[in-house]
């Protein structure tokens, strides 16, 4: 085994240990806070610093309005049966509508939702992915809890940058398969993956090839160690913001 590979594996191991310690202490103050988020996602009123507001549709579909006063121009549906339809609020208005990131393409789509159509909740968590350095950072209230080494898209199929959110959590029937035991679906789509049979949704999931992590190895998805994705699956709500950075 050559030196760079040994070093990469040591780093990966350290990150994994750190990750486990951090996630297990998310509810408390055990994990040392190392930094704050450099560019917080704007949160609408009603959310505290570092919190994001999640909008969950009261039914499996919701009408989307063009503006705070505009008319409905489309209907968005839940990503799959049994999964709540979720949005990430980015703004609000006294008129009773919320501006939100939509789970539908194109990436970064926004629209307005009627407050009567959604339930409102909040989360202190946020994920930031830095493909260039193969890192996924978990934040709580704008403070880094931990950093994970992850697999990201290759040069040909890069992980798309932008602001997204978690739209679904799937438990594959085969936890030893390529998605591992859990797979988060994001509101992001890959524009580079061709001949994809379905919706080219970018996910955050486990892997059956942990030896490839961290690295640029995927079709755009973020691959994690199975123990870590399992921890995150028990922690993060649908609607959790996910920022994929270019740098």
């Amino acid at each position, binding site marked *: 085994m050559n030196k760079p590979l040994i070093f990469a594996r040591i780093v990966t191991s350290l990150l994994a240990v750190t990750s486990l310690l951090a996630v297990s202490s998310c509810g408390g103050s055990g994990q040392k806070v190392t930094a704050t988020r450099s560019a917080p996602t704007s949160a609408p009123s009603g959310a505290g610093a570092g919190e994001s507001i999640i909008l969950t549709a009261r039914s499996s579909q919701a009408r989307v309005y063009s503006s705070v006063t505009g008319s409905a121009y489309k209907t968005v549906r839940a990503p799959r049966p049994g999964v709540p339809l979720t949005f990430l609020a980015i703004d609000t208005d006294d008129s009773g509508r919320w501006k939100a990131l939509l789970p539908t393409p194109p990436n970064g789509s926004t629209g307005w939702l009627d407050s009567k159509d959604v339930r409102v909740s909040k989360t202190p968590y946020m994920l930031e992915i830095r493909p260039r350095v193969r890192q996924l950072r978990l934040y709580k209230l704008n403070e880094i809890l931990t950093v994970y080494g992850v697999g990201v898209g290759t040069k040909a199929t890069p992980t798309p940058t932008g602001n997204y959110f978690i739209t679904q959590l*799937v438990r594959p029937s085969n936890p030893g398969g390529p998605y591992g035991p859990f797979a988060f679906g994001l509101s992001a789509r890959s524009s580079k993956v061709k001949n994809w049979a379905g919706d080219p949704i970018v996910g955050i999931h486990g892997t059956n090839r942990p030896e490839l992590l961290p690295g640029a190895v995927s079709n*755009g998805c973020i691959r994690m160690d199975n123990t870590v994705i399992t921890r995150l699956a028990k922690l993060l709500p649908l609607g959790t913001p996910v920022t994929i950075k270019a740098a």
Partner: protein
Amino acid sequence: MKRYLITALFAVTAVLGALAVPASASPVAHTPKLVLCSENAPTAETVSTEGLHHIGHSLLRGWYVCVEGKPVWLKASIETKTWCNERSNMKFEVKILVVRNGDVVLKREILWKTKKDLGLCVTPSPTPTDTVTPSPTPTVTVTTPVNNPAPPAVAVPGQPSFTG
């Protein structure tokens, strides 16, 4: 070039002046004294505003500018909001577009004004659906507080179709 700068300066000054108007003032209550128009004001400049950037609760009300030495009310398409909260420190970005002889000169000013600076924080009248929480200062209130944390996602069994 001087005239460009003078006009832009006048426009910015007018903007700042108009911004200082209390929230309770209606557009008709504005008076020309806010506008630095004079006989020596630049003439025949087309001055317009563009891209009033607002994140949520814009409160800018519009302003006068000098066109041919006369105050002209530039109506801004702005929603008037009445309450403020921790986001009140948002920055208002105002772009001033100066057009002269078909040439466009874009003057951009960032106004580091807050709602409170603008005197636009007003205690709202609670509606039956609103929950109004007393704020640290008499003029700041928070509506629609979100107190319920979202629970962790429930995993559904299935086969992901993500790109992998």
